[in-house]
């Protein structure tokens, strides 16, 4: 029995990566859920909106690095974030003017808006690759670790090491700040309340004098902020490649639907459910059990439920289970 070592192994390989990944998914799912709740369609272009926002952040970061601007030990990308958000806001408002507004005017069925967003997705896809290319891009700088494995081992004398990356710390802190600010905005401000009213009952909201175009504009601004932050955090923590952002669409949608589409609290819970399932189900528990069980019971096999190749299958399976047994998600959202 060696509970401490077991805990450290579990934290190093499951808890910390899953918390960081869950925060990134939650921020992405919040954007999807806001659009679904207020504009009433599933925005397939969300992954590529993240890729676009992150791309702008990367370009500004490179420019700042070339000028020698830095906020070491923090990554320069945080400084570039506002610029990325501004450009992304412009892009989203532009696509709304060009594409979505027309379909809103003619009161098109949601599925038509979904298809329109699919078109926007492909255009953004090409645009991002056209500007920054399809390859991996590096833009992280500053200090890499909060806690290093060797230092941890030396300080605690434990057999197992623990590493916490700066990017993981920033991800969690930023996610908390963004979520608190978003909920304050939605629950306490007049604009936020008018948005929720619009989401609950569009006709009633219109009757009480809420300007729908203003609500729409604010939704897109919020989505741009969330998408750019989520994308930049993911890029800092892992790596930036346009295609992986497109692939993020599945776990993010899974998170939004599992939590309950249109419900912001649900999006956050969903993000963590998906992240923890993906990491925990594909993690081999051999070492953890080796520390917890008496020596003669220690497992010989890896004690791994699924090979890591099946990570994406996990979010698919959870999505299907939720749709089958609880179509409105964990928190009461709209059924799909």
């Amino acid at each position, binding site marked *: 029995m060696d509970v401490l070592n077991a805990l450290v192994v579990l934290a*190093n*390989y*499951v808890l910390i*990566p899953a918390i960081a*990944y869950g925060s990134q998914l939650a921020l992405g799912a919040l954007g999807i859920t806001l659009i679904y709740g207020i504009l009433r369609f599933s925005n397939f272009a969300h992954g590529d909106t993240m890729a676009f926002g992150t791309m702008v952040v990367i370009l500004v970061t490179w420019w700042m690095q070339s000028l020698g601007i830095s906020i070491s030990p923090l990554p320069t990308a945080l400084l570039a974030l506002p610029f990325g958000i501004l450009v992304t806001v412009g892009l989203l408002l532009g696509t709304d003017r060009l594409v979505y507004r027309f379909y809103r005017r003619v009161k098109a069925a949601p599925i038509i808006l979904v298809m329109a967003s699919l078109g926007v997705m492909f255009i953004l896809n090409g645009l991002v690759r056209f500007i920054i290319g399809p390859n991996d891009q590096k833009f992280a700088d500053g200090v*890499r*670790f909060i806690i*290093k*494995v*060797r230092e941890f081992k030396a300080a605690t004398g434990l057999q197992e*090491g623990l*590493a916490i*990356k700066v990017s993981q710390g920033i991800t969690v802190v930023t996610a908390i700040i963004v979520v608190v600010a978003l909920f304050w905005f939605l629950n306490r401000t007049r604009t936020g309340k008018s948005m929720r009213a619009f989401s609950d009952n569009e006709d009633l909201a219109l009757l009480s004098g809420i300007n729908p175009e203003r609500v729409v504009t604010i939704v897109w601004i919020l989505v741009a902020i969330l998408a750019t932050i989520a994308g930049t955090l*993911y890029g800092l*923590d*892992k*790596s*930036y*490649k346009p*295609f*992986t952002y497109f692939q993020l669409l599945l776990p993010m949608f899974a998170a939004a639907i599992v939590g309950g589409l249109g419900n912001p609290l649900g999006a956050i819970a969903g993000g963590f459910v998906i992240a923890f399932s*993906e*990491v925990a189900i*594909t*993690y*081999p*528990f*051999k*070492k953890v059990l080796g520390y917890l069980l008496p020596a003669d019971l220690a497992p010989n096999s*890896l004690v*791994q439920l699924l*090979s*890591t*190749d099946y*990570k994406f299958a996990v979010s698919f399976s959870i999505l299907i289970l939720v749709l089958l047994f609880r179509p409105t998600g964990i928190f009461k959202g709209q059924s799909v």
Partner: protein
Amino acid sequence: MKKILLATAAAVLFASGALSEEIKIGVILGFTGPIESLTPDMAAGAELAMKEVTDSGKLLDGSTVTSIRADSTCIDSSAAIAAAERLITSDKVNGIVGADCSGVTGAILQNVARPNGMVMISPSATSPALSTAEDDGLFFRTAPSDARQGQVMSDILMEQGIKSVAVTYTNNDYGKGLADAFQAAYEAAGGKVTINAAHEDGKADYSAEVGALAAAGGDRLVVAGYVDQGGSGIVRAALDTGAFETFHFPDGMIGDQLVANFGSEIDGSSGELPGTDSPGAASMKTLADAAGFNGTGAFAPESYDAAALIMLAMEAAGSSAPADYKSKIMDVANAPGVKIYPGELGKALGILKDGGDVDYVGASSVELIGPGESAGNYRQIEIKDGKIETVKFR
């Protein structure tokens, strides 16, 4: 059978005639497809040898050798078979340099070369499966099988006293073949492979894969991947989580990018890649520079050697018919005899004509073993102070 008879009959005709002829050698490489950036130098290497022989005027009483290029596409077997078929039936080549990738090479061998009795020498197919393929003595390669690299890897690790490793490989024929070959050799030598797991290229995050590798444990992590792809992602995640501190890198991982990515973080790691310290590599480079291509490009030396072996075997057999010279290829490639380096093909042809014996070393230290494949020379490396340093050649 009929065609073999025909070819033999034709060969008898030619041999008895002893007249100079126009010999054609097919060069079937993937001029389009995944390795299209490598093939121009490979083809140039093969054609350099042909030009050297033609200029010497000593092959079969002054015969000339011309190259006929064809596209193997590297991945599309049916296109490669059609191209090879065309080389034999319409261009009437006397030998084939190629193909390049293991998959299409096997397809051409079984569907075209064997039915037509055509000799083919591949400069770059490394799949262990080709060692045991039925070939009627027609197939050779100047590239070593990855089974050999697996053995070399095992030897290096054993010599360093590493008895237990985790293995991860890029999920394709190269990675899987190499990882399996290594596991077999290492376990035969008494080592323990704790896990042999695939990774997909092009993902953003490899912490889950590394989690599995770390849970299995091992003294060192063997990364049979690509440095520009997932291999580097695995190493990064393993270093970040402290799962492994030293690694072993096969050829796909060794490049400038590796030390650019990790520097001294991977000090103490080992690896190996094809390479030779023989003087042949240097003279090949000089010849290639004069001809205006990169003689050190991947598999360019092997291509030169493949073409040279075909022509030397023709001279040794006194015939350009595949059925006659196929049995001579091993003779000219191996000892005993005068050692022959690039640029000395004319000299070699003279020796053979006078009934002497040659031991073709060429640009890649050719030594054909077993079923006619290169024994393979590897450069063992170690990472020291963030630099790749050569330990020795084996």
